[in-house]
């Protein structure tokens, strides 16, 4: 099985289109970094516009605020919404691509079970997803730290501002990237499931993106009828829970408690829901694949 995984990884990383995702991430990260390096103050002015009557924001303050930690948060906020497409490019192609090339039947002549075959395929997709995230972490987090330096991190929420001491930030990023890996694996699992039904990879990729877009819109809309009925069950509502690691507790006087997380049980609940989705999508994919007539 290990050998099979190596072969799958070789196949994934041998294809030029695999690197489109890496290139796209690098391009977006650099574009955001360049924009914020040269015009970050305008961005900060925009974000803090309704506080300018109460607080003094001099240029030093803005430069301190625009540190690597904040830049990485902005990049993650932007990119993690687009990344499902990049993940679906590989996992959507996983089974459907083999079927399209006519190699699926041949692959299954090897002395391994269909479950093992599916497991290896899915594992390879997960490794690709993690590799994408590591690449993003290197560019967005470490790259931004190098370009913008480090300082306290300020997280701007719709109804409040969270400030985290610089020494208390790094572990939150590791936790957030870990969580993002699970979130993107959910998309990967969905795409993988859809891939089982298709004979070419375009269908599962587009279907995955359509589902993610519709669910994301539903998750972000604040309409009471959806808030209590649909939203809590959509995996897209829980994909943004990585941000929860940057929401901190404060004492009665509003002083940040170092090392705290505002609502860890909620993050854990979201994580569990995503893991259930992964299990459900992957389990269904295996179940369907085992019963499927492989004709190509």
């Amino acid at each position: 099985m290990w050998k099979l995984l190596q072969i799958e990884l070789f196949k994934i990383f041998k294809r030029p289109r695999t690197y489109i995702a890496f290139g796209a991430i690098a391009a977006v990260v650099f574009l955001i970094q360049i924009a914020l390096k040269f015009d970050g103050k305008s961005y900060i002015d925009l974000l803090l516009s309704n506080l300018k009557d109460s607080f003094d924001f001099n240029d030093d303050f803005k430069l301190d605020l625009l540190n690597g930690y904040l830049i990485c948060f902005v990049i993650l906020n932007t990119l993690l919404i687009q990344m499902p497409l990049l993940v679906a490019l590989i996992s959507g192609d996983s089974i459907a691509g083999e079927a399209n090339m006519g190699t699926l039947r041949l692959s299954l002549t090897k002395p391994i079970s269909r479950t093992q075959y599916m497991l290896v395929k899915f594992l390879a997709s997960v490794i690709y997803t993690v590799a994408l995230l590591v690449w993003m972490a290197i560019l967005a987090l470490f790259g931004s730290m190098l370009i913008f330096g480090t300082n306290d991190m300020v997280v701007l929420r719709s109804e409040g501002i969270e400030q985290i001491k610089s020494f208390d930030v790094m572990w939150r990023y590791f936790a957030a990237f870990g969580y993002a890996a699970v979130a993107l694996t959910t998309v990967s699992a969905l795409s993988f499931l859809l891939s089982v039904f298709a004979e070419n990879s375009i269908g599962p990729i587009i279907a995955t993106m359509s589902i993610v877009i519709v669910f994301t819109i539903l998750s972000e809309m604040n309409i009471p009828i959806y808030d209590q009925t649909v939203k809590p069950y959509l995996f897209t509502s829980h994909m943004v829970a990585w941000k929860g690691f940057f929401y901190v507790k404060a004492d009665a006087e509003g002083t940040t408690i170092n090392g705290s997380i505002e609502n860890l049980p909620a993050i854990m609940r979201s994580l569990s829901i995503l893991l259930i989705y992964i299990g459900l999508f992957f389990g269904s994919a295996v179940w369907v694949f085992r019963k499927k007539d492989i004709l190509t």
Partner: protein
Amino acid sequence: MKQRTSRRWSWKIVLLLLGIPLLSGYKAAGPTAEEVIASVRAKLDKVNDYEANGKMKTNVVFIKAPIAKVKVYFKKPDKLRINNESGISFIPKGSVNINLNNIFLNGTGSFDIIDVGTEAGTNLRIIKLLPKDENSDVVLSTLYIDESQSLIRKAKTTTKDNGTYELEMTYGKYAEYGLADKVIFSFNTKDYKLPKGITFDYDDGSKKEQDPNKLKNKKGKVEIVYSEYSINKGVPDTVFR
């Protein structure tokens, strides 16, 4: 007969007691408001500049911020800078008013002094300063002064554009310069809100407590506890840029 004599004596004593203050004029009623202000100013005027280390706590309804190590620089007449030594701090507008010299910036002739008397309980002298200049941003300053030490314990400044600032001072070893060991600066804050389309907040499903008093409380507070001052040692102008 004996009873009548003692009654006459007691009347004499009462008249004598009433007469002493009248004979000695107003001196016994304590210094005038102008004199109190002059003695407070004299104390504050001893300081030309200072550099102080302290810890700053920000208490604003919509901000969660850690306690910050700050350096406060002051230089006459009105330069003040609060620098966070190891991070970021949200510095409220009007924080220049934590320097009490600012109240008397345009000289004692620039405002009318109104003596309101003493505050019940604390015995602090309440003096209001009304700027003569109609275009002045400050509309009214109310000072609560400890007459015995010539120290301003509380100050309320009402401005045209930026609401009301309040200062509460606790003095210690730098009292002789009129410099506080602890300053609580209260200021008005406006609502903070960013569109969810920008922040993409994670909704953890928990119901946010809607404390009506908390929402009504539009006052922010900044508390600075000073550990040490370096007074009249010179502060370069570059610090204030």
